[in-house]
């Protein structure tokens, strides 16, 4: 029973990160109908920026802030300098370009930093606190929950309660009409990319120290898990991404705890396949009436 409780809490902590990463995927999907397959690589690049800044200044928090900033910037750059130039008439084009971007970013990171695992610090202890003899959450887990919670709440606030969020939603729903209303549609799309990439960088900062360390491929499995979470929740649904993220986190924690960590990639792919076969629109897909 203790073990089950531990695995559940640990799964929720992982799941919170998947939720944030899935949320970033959903943001870009809603803004521009693109699944950003390069998000993992972009987030790793931001984490490397944090590594450099922390190594130079000795401060984890400066590195943390630098990663968020780098994430925001990288998102904007990818939109303006790459995605904007891609012909979007075939949905496959941006996908191929994103995959190319993955190879490019990982190759450059490997050249600059080397292809070895670099140590990644945590700002708080990862040793689980024990309550009545039962190991529960570590201070770092609490930090992860709090950070993801604050970021999620901030996103909800921006999109539903601010003029710029309204413009971003309007631009995503109907670009031509929005243009007539004076909305800078291209700017809103870039902003969406920046926000999503910033959230992705944050997720990378939270999850990389819990794995083997910093490596150009450090986010590959996280990306697949978060993509599964986003599909599970329905790519169009931010609440779905959060629920999907937590669900995938729990599942992977149980699989790794009861059946062995080697099975995690298999479990993710099996789940992704099941969702795509049974409910490709995701659990939270809005009911759409078909026009006949």
């Amino acid at each position, binding site marked *: 029973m203790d073990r089950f409780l531990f695995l559940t809490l640990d799964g929720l902590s992982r799941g919170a990160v998947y939720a944030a990463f899935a949320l970033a995927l959903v943001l870009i999907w809603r803004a521009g109908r693109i699944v950003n397959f390069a998000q993992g690589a972009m987030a790793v690049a931001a984490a490397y920026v944090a590594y450099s800044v922390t190594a130079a200044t000795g401060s984890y928090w400066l590195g943390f802030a630098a990663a968020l900033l780098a994430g925001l910037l990288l998102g904007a750059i990818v939109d303006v300098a790459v995605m904007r130039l891609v012909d979007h008439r075939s949905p496959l084009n941006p996908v191929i370009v994103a995959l190319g971007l993955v190879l490019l970013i990982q190759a450059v990171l490997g050249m600059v930093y080397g292809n070895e695992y670099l140590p990644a610090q945590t700002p708080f202890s990862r040793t689980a606190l024990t309550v009545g003899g039962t190991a529960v959450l570590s201070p770092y887990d609490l930090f992860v929950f709090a950070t993801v919670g604050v970021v999620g709440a*901030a996103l909800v*606030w*921006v999109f539903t*309660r*601010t*003029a*710029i*969020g*309204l*413009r971003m*939603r*309007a631009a995503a*729903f*109907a670009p*031509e*009409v*929005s*243009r*007539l*209303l*004076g*909305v*800078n*549609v291209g700017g809103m799309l870039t*902003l969406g990319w920046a*926000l999503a990439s910033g959230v992705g960088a944050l997720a990378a900062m939270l999850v990389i120290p819990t794995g083997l360390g910093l490596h150009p491929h450090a986010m590959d499995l996280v990306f697949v898990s978060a993509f599964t979470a986003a599909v599970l929740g329905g790519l169009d649904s931010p609440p779905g991404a959060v629920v999907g993220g937590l669900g995938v986190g729990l599942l992977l924690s149980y699989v790794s705890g009861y059946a062995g960590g080697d099975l995690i990639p298999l479990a993710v792919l099996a789940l992704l396949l099941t969702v795509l076969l049974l409910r490709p629109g995701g659990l939270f897909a809005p009911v759409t009436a078909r026009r006949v």
Partner: protein
Amino acid sequence: MADGLALHQVGVRFGGLTALDDVSLTVGPGEVVGVIGPNGAGKTTLFNVVCGFVTAHTGTLTLDGRPLRPRPHRLTRLGIARTLQGTGLFAGLTVLENVMAGASHTARSGLLPALLGLPRSDRDERRLREHARAVLADLDITAYADAAPGTLPFAIRQRVALARALAARPRLLLLDEPAGGLGADDVDTLAELIRQLPHRATDPCAVLLVEHHMDLVMAVCDRIVVLDFGRVVATGSPEAVREDPAVVDAYLGAAVDEAA
């Protein structure tokens, strides 16, 4: 030069097709000007030129005597708003949010104040919300503020689209077939509304109206411009245009074409 919008000898070609040929017209402050003509006469192209979706190959546009080089996303800042055929409302936003979006170009604060929840961003948002509520109240559709546009009857959706355009506080409102799909009662209400627009106490605006519905055009317009095959074939008061042989010709001709 005259106040308001003026087109001087505007021409538009799509490949070999001449969509607009030597079209001149003016819409002064306080005026309601109608553009009529058979299908394909160039009415929508005319709107698209004013909005900047289509660039005129020849001729010039002026707004209050200054040269106008319209671009869609600058339009509301110039004081011009447009409604679209079939409303073009944002399906994913509520009625109130749709109307707020219409005025959102007036919001000043950027992303950072929004992210940090700064008072500036809050003020912006509150002002937009209040302004949108006032516009909804003006048009008697406050009751639908929180509804999704897709769930509403067409006549109400048309009104929401009008509210969204008016929320931008335009000096010139372009109405693209606002009576399309409306019943007779709704058309009467709409006519009453359009007639009042130039004479409202707050934010009065001139109107350029493209419409098939003859009763509406005749009822609300100070002046009517008749297009046929991209050319202005008649212009004048509703009474004068109704009697004009060229107009009768254009419409009879179109009727014969459609029958053939």
